């Protein structure tokens, strides 16, 4: 069980610049292709059972003709003090001490969905079915990422497989990880450069610098979840 304490270590972090974000959803698709997130079909999406590890909250602001959408890409905030963790009876929702992120152990998960109920960000996605990916479509599935079965909870992992690969490459070359060396799929795709990922424990990293921006805020920070994702407010009339 995660302890609520003051001195929680910081490690990987993400900054979402809402002034750059256009709401294009390329990140949604990039995440799904990287992480073997199954498409579920029209009926499931209609039932609210579509699986999106990252989704764009589109909120209409104002009334016609001064109406505009505000986009807010939301993924697991990798809470430093995660409400999803203590409620899991099987310890499937666990905290990685090394990476300081929240992970889901799929083969421990028995599908109580307590964690999803307790996550204030709707970050958790439940597999209501087995993935239906007919051959040879399954050929593109990423061998670095487990394929989840029906009855299992899943969510954004900050592309932990890329973090691990980056760390291994660096250690094989006997050097520290470079800033920007690890890029999650959404960050790599984002056409407008709205997403920045990196090591928050290094004050000189780009992500640490950007997280200091005067436009910064955290999503539902008042709940004490200590999110690792920092949002930068949109700058315009319509900005986030």
């Amino acid at each position: 069980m995660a302890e609520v304490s003051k001195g929680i270590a910081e490690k990987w972090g993400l900054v979402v610049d809402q002034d750059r974000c256009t709401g294009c959803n390329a990140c949604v698709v990039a995440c799904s292709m990287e992480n073997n997130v199954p498409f579920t079909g029209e009926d499931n999406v209609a039932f609210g059972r579509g699986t999106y590890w990252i989704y764009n909250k589109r909120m209409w602001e104002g009334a016609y003709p001064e109406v505009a959408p505000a986009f807010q890409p939301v993924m697991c905030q990798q809470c430093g003090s995660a409400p999803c963790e203590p409620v899991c009876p099987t310890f499937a929702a666990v905290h990685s001490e090394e990476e300081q992120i929240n992970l889901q152990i799929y083969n421990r998960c028995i599908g109580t969905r307590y964690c999803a109920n307790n996550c204030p960000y709707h970050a958790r996605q439940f597999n209501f079915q087995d993935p239906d990916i007919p051959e040879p479509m399954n050929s593109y599935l990423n061998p670095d990422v487990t394929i989840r079965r029906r009855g299992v909870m899943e969510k954004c992992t900050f592309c932990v497989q890329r973090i691990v690969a980056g760390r291994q490459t660096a250690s094989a070359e006997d050097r520290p990880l470079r800033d920007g060396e690890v890029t999650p799929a959404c960050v790599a795709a984002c056409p407008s450069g709205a997403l920045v990922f990196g090591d928050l424990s290094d004050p000189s990293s780009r992500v640490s610098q950007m997280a200091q921006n005067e436009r910064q805020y955290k999503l539902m920070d008042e709940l004490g979840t200590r999110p690792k994702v920092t949002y930068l407010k949109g700058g315009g009339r319509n900005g986030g």
Partner: protein
Amino acid sequence: MSDKITRRNFLKIAGAGAAISAVLTGCGPMSRYIVRRPYTEMPEYNQTGLNTYYASTCRECAAGCGIIVRTKEGRAITIEGNPQHPLNRGRLCARGITAQQGLYNPDRVFGPIFQARGDTGRQARTSWDEAIPLVSEALKSPAGQIAFLLGTAPDHLYDLVTEWTRSIGAPAPLRYSALASFEGRSTLQEAANRTFGKPALPYFDLANAEVVFSFGANFLETWLSPVSYSAAYGDMRQARPTRRGYLVAFEARQSLTAGNADEWIPIKPGSEGLVALALARLVAEARGEATPAAARSIDPATVAETAGIEPAKLTELARLFAASEHSLAIPGGSAIGQHEGLAIAQAILQLNVQVNNLGLPGGVFLTNSEQPTTSLTEVKSLVQKMNDSQVKVLFIHAANPVFELPKVLGFEEALAKVPLVISFATFPDETAMLSDYILPDHSPLESFGYQRMLAAADRPVYSSIQPVVAPLYDTRATADVLLAAAAAAGSPLPYTDEVDFVQQMIVPLISAGGFYTAPEIQTFWSRWLQYGGWWVTEQGLDAEIAAGSSRPATFSGPAALEEDKQFYLVVFPTQLGDGAGANRPWLQEMPDPMTTLTWNTWVEVNPETADKLGIHDDDVVRVTTPYGALEASVYRYPAIRPDTIAIPFGQGHTALGRWAEGRGANPAALLPAAVNEAGDLAFGDVIASIALTGKRRPLARVENREGVYGEH
């Protein structure tokens, strides 16, 4: 088949390039040179458990973004942008990211088929040994009776076919894509020609602009080169420490681009030209300059009223535009794809002339790129020729005219009058189904080639295409089929195969001052594949653009409507592009950014109008225009004029595989065949009516997921 270069030799040659970078491989599963073997005999360039990366070019639209494909054990796993590529600099859009879902799609055409125009009784698999003589016979037809209809990508096939048709005196190949219609490409190019004296696509330096006026340009979605324009948009917002760019969008239906604008000005469709002229007059006043000739008879207050906006707003915006040192006006598809579109495009381009931003940072440049389409006028005359039985054989590649063209154009009926239709489609799309033969090309990720017309590149760029996996099925490169058939028909071209053709085409680049060179073509070729193309290091576009004088124009303005009975119709493209994306399940499941809708077609109606007409969310309505009708569910869309309705393009397939078929409706049924002066489809000023059908069909939306565990 070339036996000149054996596989081992080839790898040796290519190995010369491999020294340059440990990451990207210049060699690859080059279909022709490498035999497929079981993975127990692993090829040298592959190691179990290790990734192999290939640089290539996205072919999901005509933009030509550079991609890096990560492969493992011969399978294409993930696609990301090529960080070195000057167009997209490592970024990519949803369509490029899901290209594997085309490669590994279970509904592809597996090999050459005698398709018998859908007559299932006569359909049969055929072989390439039979297909080549057949194509060869067809190429022997009288030159004037051969027609090629190609897609907007890839460019190398277009170049090859152009060379062949020229050599025998046949009509030049046509290129068409519905996307090009929605972009108004021909109009944009012709407007640039008339305004700047050169028929090239203009490049808008969004990243360095401060005040940007977009007239229906959906550059964050599909317009010209969405990835590079999205990157520029991000920089326009946040890359300068002191100045945040300001975007104003003039359009009747709020697109994603307009949704991101600082101000959305919902003007009536058809009033864009008038608004541009009124702005020209007000901008001149604000700058203390003489009113441009074209705008002298314009009264801004009247224009504002006609366009349906506040006169004070227009003045305020004109002052903003006039005051900034880096103002930019962009003419987009829905504004210029209208009857008077060419004059509208010129009027908008003239705003740039007025603020002297030509060839300056934040202004307008001219690219080296022609637009990669022929105009709809030429497609129409092809249809006429087909109807007059003047076309004996029609070849179709990477285009789906039966689906994409307005139904009233009668392409399908004309197709029935062509004695021999040969499709090179990789998917059984609507047009391929009505062909005599489908001789499938490799899928883009299994192909060679290049894209050279990069509409938003800020420098000369050739982007290379190479196979990242060995072909999965009994498909064959269309260029190879045509080369072999042309040789057999007695009108050979001097190339042994597709690779030879591409190599000969890029020979001039060796000494053209790019960021690498090589003593001979084979070494150059391996670098060309390794880097994903060729370009020059320095950014550089034609800054010497001269402005012509502004031509007096008169605009008839928006059509009058019968209130609550008639509506302006906006048909807009989405992530499904020209419709070919509809068989990628993740593009279907990806929520439409503005509505969060998935997997279907919807009709956007302003809630105020919907209330008046008693229309609820998910009610099925029948939309009728003078050209046809369709039925789809309503989405009450708050960001659209009350006198306008909108429908997304791309669904409504009757073929194209399990994920595309029988889903939604195709708005091509609602569009006219009319063109503007530049030959682009006049789709932007169509008038429609809607009627309730009494049916209800819920749309699959993502936006209510917050209510899933509680109230809906």
